[in-house]
């Protein structure tokens, strides 16, 4: 029989991983660098590891959903990310999908939420 904590952690990670893209896209209307985005997400209750966030930002940029610019004016160069027009349209669809999924899951677990 599987260990409850280990099973839960794995499933929780898996569930969370699926929501990260939407969470990131939702916070990048204004340009943010990695650490500032991580702080915003944490403030709003989403803990994300830097080794998950930074590669994810690069991947989203590669897929055209984010744009990035290097700010070299400060003492250290910093990469700022901002959502692109493609990202905005994908985010729109993802939000609709999220709401619909939320409703479905709510219906499925509705009566037993405290179990």
């Amino acid at each position, binding site marked *: 029989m599987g260990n409850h904590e280990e099973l839960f952690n794995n499933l929780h990670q898996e569930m969370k991983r699926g929501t990260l893209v939407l969470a990131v896209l939702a916070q990048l209307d204004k340009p943010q*660098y*990695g*650490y500032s985005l991580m*702080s915003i997400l944490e403030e709003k209750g989403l803990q994300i590891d*830097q*080794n*998950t966030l*930074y*590669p994810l930002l*690069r*991947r989203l940029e590669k897929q055209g959903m984010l744009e990035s610019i290097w700010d070299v004016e*400060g*003492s*250290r*160069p*910093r*990469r700022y990310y901002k959502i692109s027009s493609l990202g905005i349209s994908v985010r729109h669809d993802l939000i609709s999908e999220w709401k619909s999924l939320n409703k479905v899951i709510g219906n499925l677990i509705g009566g037993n939420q405290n179990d």
Partner: protein
Amino acid sequence: MIKNYLYTVGKYLPTSQRDDILKDLEANIYELLEEAHGDREYSQEEVEDVLYKMGNPKKVAESYLERPRYLIGPQYIDMYLLVIKVALLGISIGILVVSIIKFIVDGDILQSLLSLVGGIWNAGLVMVGIVTIIFSLVEHYGEKDNLPFDQADEKWSLESLESPPEDVDKIKISDLVFESIFILAFLAFINHGLPLPIIYENQSFVLLNHEVLSPYLLWINLALGSSLLLNVYLLMRRSWSILTRLLSIALDMVGIAIFSVLALTPDLWDFSRIPGVTQEELTGIETGVGLGLKIGLAAIIVITLIEVFNHIRALFRKR
């Protein structure tokens, strides 16, 4: 310290992306330092603290890789391991036989053991290297699985599904493995000294004329090596195709040709080396061995022709 960290991460990154990722990573490290301690020079301890927070360099590098890197992927790894096992077993058998014969001839157990271990080590290394190169080339340039199991963005259609081979085209893996072990053992045997001694009145004599045989060795190696490559390919494909059947027929024909030349070459054996043999006895031995070789040749031709016939029948059925 930061340079060392970046260098170590870079070792696990592909060259094409290394500089770009490391530039990002360096900026991330300084972001963390700045957020924790402000914009200033940082102490060794502060840097170390942030680097530990970043994590194991290998893990960090892996998190940036979009897909795992490997020389031989999941599609071929089981077959690769099977081929390596077959190759090592075949080579070991061949060299073991040579070493036993050497021991019988020389009676020097240490020399025979050294020959056994050294031979298996050398031939094994070469074989593992060759097999690894072949499989990595197939992995790199070969046909990939059509179905994208782990890449949700790639489309697939029902047309991309592979149909299982018809019964007539199915390959028995055990037959191929057995044949490959035999070929490898034979290759190891002929390339590892080929002593073939005859023991007569407690004395051993090598009756094979190496000078006559050596020009054929290259062709024997090429033919058997090609058969091995074909077997490895068939193990990977797991079914016959028109091309592999035609290749197999061609290799069977080459095999018959080489064996015929060897069996019908009168100078291949030199029985006059047997001490005290009279001319009459020599003629008798030569006639007997010649007849034996011809019977052996006839048997091999019959067996091979049956195999060729089966291939041709299968080709016609397919048409």
